[in-house]
């Protein structure tokens, strides 16, 4: 999953409004952030499936058996949820944990069978992945639905917020519309960049 988790982060704001958007974005991409760090130090790898099209959408052969193992995802979700509960509230903690783990569920749908169950693929258990990436049209539709739903949920939630005071309601409305449009616009732009294979 490349861009879909961004949509989940924005949409989750409707269920956990107290959590800042940046925290939900980090939660939604926590597995990929860990993957990037491990890739930088050479522990995990990302190779193009076809050498002729190294940037093709979904054209990745991933070795991400630490960052994207099922047990790693559950642990990261639990830790992030506990942090969210301590910093914000119980409901926010549950939403953050769900957002972190949703990334793994989406990857299960999209990635080829390269998701380990235990970190480092300990025990050589069967690898998981339904491989929707091999049907680019379908996986792009899944990503688009996630991103557009997230953008819509965020947009609606932001515009429903009351102004801090009646006097500032006009100025506040402009502020809410700006935030909603910029966030939704960035999500749609990320989707376009993904579909064009530039991610």
């Amino acid at each position, binding site marked *: 999953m*490349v*861009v879909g988790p*961004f949509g989940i*982060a*924005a949409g989750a*704001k409707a269920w956990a*409004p*107290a959590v*800042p*958007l*940046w925290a939900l*974005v*980090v939660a939604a*991409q926590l597995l*990929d*952030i860990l993957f*990037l760090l491990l890739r930088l130090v050479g522990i995990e790898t*990302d190779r193009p499936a076809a050498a002729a099209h190294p940037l093709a959408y979904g054209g990745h052969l991933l070795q991400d058996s630490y960052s994207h193992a099922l047990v790693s995802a559950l642990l990261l979700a639990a830790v992030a949820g506990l942090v969210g509960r301590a910093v*914000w*509230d*119980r*409901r*926010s903690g549950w939403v953050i944990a769900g957002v972190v783990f949703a990334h793994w569920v989406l990857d299960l749908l999209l990635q080829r069978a390269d998701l380990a169950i235990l970190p480092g693929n300990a025990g050589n258990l069967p690898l998981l992945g339904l491989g929707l990436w091999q049907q680019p049209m379908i996986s792009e539709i899944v990503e688009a639905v996630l991103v557009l739903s997230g953008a819509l949920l965020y947009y609606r939630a*932001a515009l429903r*917020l*009351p*102004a*801090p005071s009646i006097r500032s309601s006009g100025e*506040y409305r402009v*502020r*809410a519309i*700006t*935030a909603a449009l*910029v*966030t939704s616009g*960035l*999500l749609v*732009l*990320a989707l376009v*960049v993904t579909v064009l294979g*530039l*991610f």
Partner: protein
Amino acid sequence: MVSFVVFMVLLAGVAGWLDSRLNWPKPATRGRRERL
């Protein structure tokens, strides 16, 4: 990879900053602590 990081920064940074200026409800626990 670069695009991914750019969008992470834009969404978490720019959109996150705009988001922080909105009147979102405060966490439930904070309200409880304040009342106590």
